[in-house]
């Protein structure tokens, strides 16, 4: 029955890792977009191209 622990470790790390990566990406993206928008606001010649999404 100790196999179960390996199953839990396998699923836990992989699914947890995917979730962690997704959250980290979302955070970095939000921060980068904020910085990008701020710079655009500062730049006089800023174009208003949509960032997508």
């Amino acid at each position, binding site marked *: 029955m100790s196999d179960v622990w390996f199953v839990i470790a396998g699923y836990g790390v992989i699914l947890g890792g995917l979730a962690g990566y997704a959250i980290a990406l979302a955070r970095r993206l939000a921060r980068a977009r904020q910085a990008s928008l701020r710079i655009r606001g500062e*730049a006089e*010649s*800023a*174009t208003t*191209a949509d960032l997508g999404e």
Partner: protein
Amino acid sequence: MPQTTIYVAPRLGGAHGSPPPAVDTDGLARLFGRSAALAGVSLRIEAGRTVALLGPNGAGKTTLLRILATAIRPSFGGLFIDGVDALRHPEIIRTRVAYLSHASGMYDDLTASENLRFAATMLGWSGAEVGTVADRAIAEVGLAPVADDRVGTFSAGMRKRLALARLLVARPSLVLLDEPHAALDEDGMALVDRLLGLWHEFGITVVVASHQADRVVRAADATVRLHGGLVAEVSGSGVRAGALAPVIPSYATPLGTIR
């Protein structure tokens, strides 16, 4: 004194109207890390002119010459040489441009003669011609007595002469010289002056950066003064400075428009 031979690349056909300018740059800018070595240079140089590039250290002379030589790419801006887009087709430009840089570009463990034969082979001379062309160029720059010595034993001035000899082996329509007088003795400087005269006579466009302002200005049709990576002043004939386009960010960057 040996007879100087200057090989010339044929001008690219301007089928209709006047030939394209030898050099046509549009807002060339280049960043190295965080510093802007060039902040936007728009110049148009007519074919056959000799142009002196002046300015203090750090003005961007070397960077401009390296971009013209296609040794580095500009961060922004466009470059046409003889009407050819140099950023899209550097391989065409390289058949037409001869460039003397600060470094000699020679191999220390080879002799002067071996170095120049290698250069002649790379520049497209075939088997039998390589030896003649190389020997003639070495004699022309006054290195014949040390032709079989290794370049590693050469002084800075001798290296410069050897680098000049490589220019004589090339068949350019545009010659770019970065401080050709540096490290040379009086005799060597006279050699540079004589070559400048010959290139001019043969209708080859020359852009020469130098601290020896009086020497190059004497040989030049026009002078361009750079300061802080921008064109500060243009005088003489055959060169025009263009207006700078404002810096506009672009979010998709196909090659050649903005980089």
